[in-house]
């Protein structure tokens, strides 16, 4: 499935809301399969996070971003910045579904000489705008891109996906203040609130709530949504059009680790989830059963 057109799909003359929902949900389902297949090659990995964020990424790549899949350096593209390097597995699935990288290449994920390393890096992968790995960098770079594009008169949007863990970093809030100060209406932050960090549940690592009120106080147009509810996600992104033209926007997405695979949704939450060899097929089967319901 390849998205070849560079039109803005959310434009009024575009497809119906139901069509958009179906397109996004179908892509998210295939992306989850890609994630399980990539995870199986490594025998482990950030599969739980990737299943959780699949719907958010599908909305971005199937519905929101203006891209030319065959020309990842097109100057007028929207920039999607993955702050969270370890979420690369999720982004590779999205890039494959968007037609930026071939689906067959996904099986090289995390292998020597692959263009798809475990941690996302711009120098390796077409469509990967920045190098992640050290958390808390994306929003600052996003501020610079948004400033630079506006300065050059380029109408592209800059979208930064960050994690709830990245809200621990002072650098994120420096960037948040900078974005509001510079009136960057062309910057959108998307926060994956999966309630998990390396040492355990986010609430026990560092209390970051109330997250909406923080972003609002920092001068951002703020919406919060169930990040595994595709229609709700689409409505949330559509609603950003109501924001003042020069106000940066944030979509706070509450997601479920392992979403779509009950076996993993119910497992004790772990930053680095272990999945036994025989469980990969069970996970795939559960994913398909869920899709039929």
């Amino acid at each position, binding site marked *: 499935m390849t998205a070849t057109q560079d039109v803005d799909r959310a434009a009024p003359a575009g497809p119906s809301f139901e069509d958009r929902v179906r397109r996004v949900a179908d892509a998210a389902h295939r992306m989850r399969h890609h994630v399980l297949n990539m995870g199986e*090659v490594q025998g482990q990995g950030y599969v739980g996070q990737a299943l959780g964020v699949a719907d958010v990424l599908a909305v971005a790549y199937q519905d929101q971003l203006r891209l030319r899949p065959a020309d990842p350096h097109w100057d007028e593209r929207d920039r999607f910045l993955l702050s969270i*390097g370890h979420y690369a597995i999720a982004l590779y699935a999205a890039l494959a579904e968007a037609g930026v990288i071939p689906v067959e290449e996904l099986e090289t994920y*995390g292998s020597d000489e692959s263009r798809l390393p475990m941690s996302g890096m711009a120098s*390796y992968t077409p469509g990967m705008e920045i190098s992640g790995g050290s958390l808390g960098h994306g929003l600052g770079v996003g501020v610079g891109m948004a400033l630079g594009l506006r300065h050059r008169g380029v109408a592209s949007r800059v979208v930064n996906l960050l994690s709830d*863990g990245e809200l*621990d970093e*002072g650098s994120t809030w420096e960037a948040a203040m900078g974005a509001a100060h510079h009136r960057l209406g062309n910057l959108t932050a998307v926060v994956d609130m999966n309630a998990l*960090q390396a*040492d355990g549940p986010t609430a026990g*690592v560092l209390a970051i709530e109330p997250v909406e009120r923080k972003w609002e106080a920092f001068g951002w147009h703020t919406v919060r949504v169930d990040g595994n509810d595709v229609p709700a996600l689409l409505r949330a992104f559509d609603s950003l059009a109501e924001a003042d033209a020069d106000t940066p926007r944030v979509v706070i997405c509450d997601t479920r680790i392992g979403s779509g695979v009950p076996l993993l949704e119910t497992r004790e939450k772990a930053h680095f989830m272990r999945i036994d060899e025989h469980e990969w097929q069970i996970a795939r089967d559960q994913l398909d059963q869920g899709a039929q319901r």
Partner: protein
Amino acid sequence: MSTPTRKRLTTSAMIASFVDEGQRTTPAPFGHALSRLAEERPEIVGLTADLGKYTDMHVFAQDHPDRFFQMGMSEQLLLGAAAGMAEVGLVPFASTYSVFATRRAYDFLCLDAAEPGLNVNIVGGLPGLTTGYGPSHQATEDIAILRGMPGLTIVDPCDSVDIEQAVPALAEVAGPTYLRLLRGKVPTVLDEYDYTFEVGRAAELRTGRDVTLVSSGLMTMRALSAAERLAEHRVDVGVLHVPTIKPLDTEAVLRVGRSDRLVVTVENHSVVGGLGEAVASCLAFNGVGRDLVPVALPDEFLAAGALPTLHDRYGLSTDRLVRRVLDALEV
């Protein structure tokens, strides 16, 4: 675009191990050593920045929950707060990955802890090339960053024995310290030698007439293996283990430098600013002019990949070390 299909070596990023096959190991030596020390010294506290489980600090946290402080993934706060705790009379050990302690939080370590000369102990995981995760996690220049910080003690331990002995020794050092952490199942090597860790002291683990390998960190383990292998080539190799990079044991280094043997520095760090350059400047500044062969990581951002592949590619494997010595000897 190429899509390789041959049998794949995978990154296994966060559980990558440099342990040789069949090698004896000890679980979480840092965490257990800190826990034991805390039983004797009530002023010891532990902090981490969302990496307790990944720096063996979780062992201390389980044993001493009331003396463990989870600071969130906020490395600047981690080091600033550690300094604050030292200001009010505690002895903090603060753990994160080496890259974040050095790159992200340098200013906080420098001005909050080092300038006032506080007893703040930084514990950095994944030093040098100990993960295949790419430059974001490979602390290839941590020593280069830190060597210029006045008053900082820098320790690069070889194994579990070194770590167990270094933890109480570093707590005794009045000023700030930086320990290059080896975590998880850590090789146990030095108990076979007549060795004790002492801050600022290098140790001759093995003597040899032809070559001296001057090594630190996990590369001392490789140096010892290489020395065994080189004996099969009738090359007699000594090993000087230099666990304290700063302050350097200049006497031991000068003794080796003044010998007529081939001297090879061996480190898990960039060729810029690490043990090799510390040895070179020590010799040159003391009027000892001689050749040195540096075995170190190249001055590059390294690739992502499986750790054994990378150690081989960048010259840290025992095979590559043996070859380098033979080449230098033109054998």
